[in-house]
């Protein structure tokens, strides 16, 4: 049953092939049995899950079943869950039990989904390998000596290991797409403002966006239809009503114009990875699409701009963790300064500290114009590159990550090399566009992801383009386990 997709489960539950309690119990057992090897969960909420499943079964029996009624999924531990510890992968919040739910959690509960637990992640979503988690690294189910990517590594690994058919995630610079690419899963980062950020612990507010990781584009579309929606509690939410993102899945893509940016196939791209992506583009040509060479000339500035903007926003977003109202507090503070310094020194891991200091530097007197303001100007140039490209093409494609999963520890000593993992994903966050990663082959037995970038609010078409590929190919069905 663990091999079933969300679409399969919805069908099976409605046709009474199995109950929600049965599949939930089986996945819980599987988590208990296998997850010690992957460490993809921080908390498993078995009792709650079974209670939710029983309630879902009752609703299914009564014929009053919402979209995802009885479907077991997992949530990245960045989404606040009422009564369930929400750690954000940090010692700082190891003891934090929110008395409220994130909007995303509310939406899934309303849709009848069952939550199996909370997935592991890089601390405060800062990382591309899931090694910065206070709860230890997540291991890639394809090769447990390798990273699953990050920061949503737990969600991606849990889906890849078939511990759950789908999981929520967040993407600030690639944190959905890069782990999806490294684990052969399908991950969607929607247009900025599609998914409410209420109750989603902020890393960089103007870049953060929630989205799903699943095994197919269809499943991701089903999940996104539940996740997205208007929420007046989030000022940056687009306040657009919920949409059915599966509506266009089956449409033909004949005549589709695919932009292929030359900057995404240059230096830094692993050649075998490039080959797989080229093969996927060839497959699209077979499906009737047309490839158009394009240029996104400011691509090389995306990582530098991001590593000013994201740390700057984070440096302020993380100031609330001060040991006063919740979270980690140091023992016996000598005075107020000591309370702050030690609580934050002990509560935050090294990467988080580093980014806070970088952000503090970029905003400090005398540097604001050279760093923060400059980065925001470059951000507009990057957006303009995309806006111009989308005048000529319907979607843009390229690799998600420059190479397949790397070994645990390989990039830890060099943060900049880690940052370059997101070289193809970061610009999309800066521009606020929707994008996704889907499996397009393997290199030495390790998955490679194809990235599809859609125009603003064009998720339905992007998912259609991905779905048609998955109808024609089998890469997404390859399993790690």
């Amino acid at each position: 049953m663990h091999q079933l997709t969300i679409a399969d489960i919805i069908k099976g539950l409605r046709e009474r092939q199995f109950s929600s309690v049965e599949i939930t119990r089986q996945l819980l057992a599987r988590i208990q049995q296998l997850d010690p090897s992957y460490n993809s969960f921080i908390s498993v909420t078995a009792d709650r899950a079974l209670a939710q499943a029983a309630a879902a079964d009752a609703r299914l029996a009564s014929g009053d079943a919402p979209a995802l009624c009885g479907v077991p999924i997992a949530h990245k531990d960045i989404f606040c869950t009422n009564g369930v510890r929400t750690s954000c992968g940090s010692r700082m919040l190891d003891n934090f039990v929110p008395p409220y739910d994130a909007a995303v959690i509310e939406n899934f509960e309303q849709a009848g989904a069952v939550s199996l637990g909370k997935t592991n992640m890089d601390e405060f979503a800062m990382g591309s390998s899931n090694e910065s988690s206070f709860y230890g690294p997540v291991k890639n189910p394809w090769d447990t000596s390798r990273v699953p990517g990050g920061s949503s590594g737990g969600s991606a690994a849990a889906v890849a290991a078939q511990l759950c058919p789908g999981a929520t995630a967040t993407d600030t610079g690639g944190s959905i797409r890069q782990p999806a690419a490294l684990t052969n899963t399908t991950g969607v980062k929607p247009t900025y403002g599609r998914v409410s950020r209420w109750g989603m612990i902020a890393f960089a507010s103007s870049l953060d966006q929630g989205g799903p990781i699943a095994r197919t584009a269809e499943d991701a579309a089903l999940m996104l239809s539940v996740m997205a929606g208007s929420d007046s509690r989030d000022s940056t939410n687009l306040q657009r009503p919920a949409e059915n993102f599966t509506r266009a899945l089956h449409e033909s893509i004949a005549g589709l114009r695919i932009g292929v940016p030359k900057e995404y196939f240059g230096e830094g791209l692993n050649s075998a990875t490039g080959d797989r992506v080229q093969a996927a583009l060839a497959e699209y040509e077979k499906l009737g699409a047309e490839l158009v060479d394009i240029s996104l000339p400011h691509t090389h500035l995306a990582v530098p701009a991001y590593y000013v903007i994201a740390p700057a926003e984070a440096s302020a977003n993380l100031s609330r963790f001060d040991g006063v109202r919740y979270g980690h507090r140091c023992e016996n503070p000598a005075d107020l300064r000591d309370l702050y310094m030690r609580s934050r020194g002990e509560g935050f891991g090294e990467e988080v500290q580093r980014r806070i200091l970088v952000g503090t530097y970029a905003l400090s007197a005398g540097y604001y114009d050279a760093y923060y303001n400059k980065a925001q100007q470059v951000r507009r140039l990057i957006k303009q590159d995309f806006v111009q490209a989308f005048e000529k093409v319907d979607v843009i494609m390229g690799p998600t990550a420059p190479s397949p999963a790397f070994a645990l520890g390989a990039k830890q000593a060099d943060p900049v090399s880690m940052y370059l993992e997101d070289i193809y994903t970061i610009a999309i966050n800066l521009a606020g566009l929707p994008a996704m990663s889907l499996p397009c082959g393997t290199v030495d037995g390790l998955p490679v992801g194809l990235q599809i970038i859609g125009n603003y609010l064009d998720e339905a078409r992007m998912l259609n383009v991905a779905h048609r590929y998955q109808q024609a190919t089998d890469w997404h069905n390859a399993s790690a386990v």
Partner: protein
Amino acid sequence: MEWEIVIGLEVHVQLSTQSKLFSGASTRFGAAPNTQACAIDLAMPGTLPVPNEEAFRYAVMFGLAMNAEIGKRSVFERKNYFYPDLPKGYQTTQLAEPIVGPGEVEIHLEDGSSKKVRLHHAHLEEDAGKSLHEDFHGMSGIDLNRAGTPLIEIVSEPDMRSAAEAVAYLRKIHSIVTYLGISDGDMSQGSLRCDANVSVRLKGEEELGTRTELKNINSFRFVERAIKVEAQRQIDLIEDGGKVVQETRLYDADKNETRSMRSKEVANDYRYFPCPDLLPVELTDEYIDSIRQQLPELPDAKSTRFASDYNLSAYDADQLIQDRATADYFEIAAERCGQPKLVANWMMGELAALLNREEIAIGQSPISAEQLAGLIERIVDNTISSKIAKQVFEAMANGEGDADTVIEKRGLKQVSDTGAIEKMVDDVIANSAAQVENYRGADESKRPKMMGYFVGQIMKASKGQANPQLINKILKEKLDALL
């Protein structure tokens, strides 16, 4: 050497919205600690701000009242610093694009002169919570009920040249915000707080001297005293060869001195940047115009109208319009009794003294405008003398009822019965043989003055109730008859 004092004020005004600037928690004053601090106010993880429309409406009203430019686009920024009463570790405020731009306001001084003070800008921001320093086992307690309450910070140009001007400006701001009804303006509850930037320079000097910032001066009287004492400190310092250090200082009202707050000086670098959880606010011309049309009569207009309609001096009119409640009180009383000048005198005299003594606002006055008018009517129709009226006023203040009730109960009605007064005059003359002799022997020019003695005796005999005009008339007739 002649010194010139240069003052700029930063005035924080709490807006009287129902809910907070970024959350739906109540702003009511005086609730039990932390019962009005919701998840957003507490900066719980994942919570997000949404701005309050009413706060913007109030800020625009203020800007229009100050003849200022309205920021049709305004942007919230984060001001970063750590303090336990600041839950997010930053204050959400406005800097580069505030809601209210440059403007100016006219202030009126006691000597009848007036001058313009320029407004640099005014911005919306959130208030912080409170640290309570009572001893909790050597710790401080934090109450975040106030955290997130909307404020406008009103920043003047350094246009004031004396403590009196600063006070006049502050009173003007106070009267504008209370007229608009956007704040209760209560300084004792911290609804209006004032920081003063003070520097001194030799008269004629162009360049500004080094300034100090006096923090949180919480009454009109203290503003005046704090500025005076700080300016004098700077002058003494410079005259002794010292140098003013740019710093934040605290006014100690008990010692009437300012002292350095070095603990606040630790290398602040606020790292302002646009708040990424909020978007730019854009207001349309239609919206701003609709607010303009709904503005109530403002203090300056009211002052002009009072002076012309009620025939008051500019100074009296200005005193009466200082806050809306006072102006309303005046207008009700003046309309009721038709004696604006008397109403003004009573309000600035007896009533002001009473309110001062009781430390209450005019809204809590034990004597209503209608009651004061009733009292004045009795003076005008000669039922009581002005002197007796003061007794009646005190009785009214003690809750003994309106003027007629007091006069009736205490039997204070003025004696205007000619026969009764004649008898009293006769008695006094009969008992004052020596004074009568003096009067008769005195020079004509000195006689009016000598009548005072007799009047006093008669008043005493009548317990103050005899009509003074009648006494004078009858007494003069009777004394002159003896010549």
